[in-house]
């Protein structure tokens, strides 16, 4: 099935124009599921068997006179690949909190960098019967439920075999870790990780799932606290 984007411009947030990088974040709508789309004036004709869905997307435009550029993106702390639409524009789709790092480099001018954050609202929704050309802007999107790709649910599923005593140990270690991070007794994530390692928590499958999940994410200090809280929530 062909994927087709029809882009309604809802709002344009001019983010920044500093030094050598200008970034512009544009919220748009994407319609996918259109078969044989054909633009006729201001109408799009599509095959009758098309099953449309509309989702929010964001286009990030990066303008610079530096020779090289690098765009790194993270959604809810996990690295994601941006879809490059053309030389200057990158498309982001899928609900979540995004952090986009743009670094530019030029042998003659040096380096520059900037960072952009934005939300994309939750899951795709089916379109109304006749989507008008000027639909009302969506309300501010809420952060997606099930943080870190439903981490708590995955933890709950893998922790069913834990005995009451084992579960108490998990709860205690995680609660202590969170408390020590919040009080800055731990100032670095690796101190928290070493504390957990030293506790030698049982359940190889659960440990492996958490190790794999953590490995795939780039979390700040406070996001790590939130991640541990989700693990704790799953255990409960």
């Amino acid at each position, binding site marked *: 099935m062909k994927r087709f984007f029809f882009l309604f411009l809802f709002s344009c947030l001019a983010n920044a124009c500093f030094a050598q990088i200008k970034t512009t974040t544009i919220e748009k709508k994407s319609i996918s599921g259109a078969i044989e789309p054909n633009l006729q004036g201001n109408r799009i004709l599509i095959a009758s068997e098309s099953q449309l869905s509309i989702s929010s997307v964001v286009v990030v435009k990066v303008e610079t006179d530096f020779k090289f550029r690098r765009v790194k993106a993270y959604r809810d702390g996990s690295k994601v690949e941006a879809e490059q639409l053309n030389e200057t524009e990158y498309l982001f789709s899928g609900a979540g909190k995004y952090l986009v790092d743009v670094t530019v480099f030029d042998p003659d001018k040096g380096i520059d960098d900037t960072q952009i954050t934005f939300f994309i609202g939750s899951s795709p929704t089916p379109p109304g019967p006749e989507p008008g050309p000027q639909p009302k802007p969506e309300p501010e999107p809420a952060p997606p439920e099930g943080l870190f790709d439903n981490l708590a649910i995955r933890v709950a599923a893998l922790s069913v075999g834990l005995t009451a005593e084992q579960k108490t140990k998990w709860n205690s270690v995680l609660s202590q870790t969170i408390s020590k991070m919040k009080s800055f007794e731990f100032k670095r994530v690796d101190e928290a990780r070493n504390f957990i390692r030293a506790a030698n928590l049982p359940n190889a499958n659960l440990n492996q799932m958490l190790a794999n999940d953590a*490995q795939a994410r780039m979390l700040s200090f406070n996001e790590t606290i939130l991640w541990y809280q989700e693990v704790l929530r799953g255990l409960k």
Partner: protein
Amino acid sequence: MAVASDMPMGWGLPWQNLQDRLDDESRARDQLAAIAPAALMRHKAKEVANQELLESVKKLMAEDGMEGGFSFLHLHEAVMGSQPDWKPQLIGSCVASGDKETTAARMLAEVHLFQQPETLPGSNISGTNNLSFFAPFNYRAGRKLAGINGNGDGSLCMTHIRGKMQFGHLPCDTAGLASDAFPEPQNQSTYRAWGATDKFLNEFAAVAGKCKLLESEKVRTPDEQWTLTNEHFKPANICSMWAFKRGPKHPTWKTRDGQPVYIWVRDSRQEWAHNMSRMGYVEVSGKRYGIIKNTCGDFHDGRSWFVIDQDTDEAWLRQAECQTVGNIDLSDSPAAWPS
């Protein structure tokens, strides 16, 4: 009783006058601007993501009579449990010793105020698990770029900044790094050996090159410093010939221990060829004051820091080399779970 003037100073070389030193600084900046102009420009301010921590800092500042502005001394206290108490400099390494403090302050802002997904080099102010990078590495990098070799002391503010951009920073827990103390040796010969030649710089260049300073901006006025401190959270290094002495007592300002705060002024009878650390710009009774930290020791009313008013600062900045410590490319935050 020892005073700050008895400490070895280290801005520039002993036979240089003020203008010679400022000219060297200016030349070093122009050279850097020619190859990496973006490194010296003002970048977009990063947002504070941890408002709770910022509130804690403000609360601690209020206990010390500071009604507004921002103090890196109190950020340090909020995260580390006490205000910075690094060991005083022992040789004329003030450019490196003071920069070690501004760099540590900036890293705390990046990791804990901005919540960048990065990690601090360490958690303590002594030993190898150190919040600060190993200062002698940067001391040599700056001296190399200034063309200063051998066992005599001294460096330049601007080449020091460029050295941090070009050679990076060395974590104190680097394998093979030997010293009697961290982040600065307490053995003077050891410190001077680091500054004398490229031997250690070359030996540890690969490790240090992973954490480079990305930006620094010249500070020209107190208003600029206010903005850079309170909106960009950038401390600054200031090299000058100015000496300071205690001035008038502030009519109402007292710190939490009940001690009055004196406003320090220029002591024109003396000269300190010295780098100090600009660790905050605060407001008290509607007036702004700069917080200046001195690596010489607790020579300022029993503290290692003192305050100056804006008029003094305005005049000082005109005869000084002052550069911010901006964004540092720290190591990425590690995975949260052991594998």
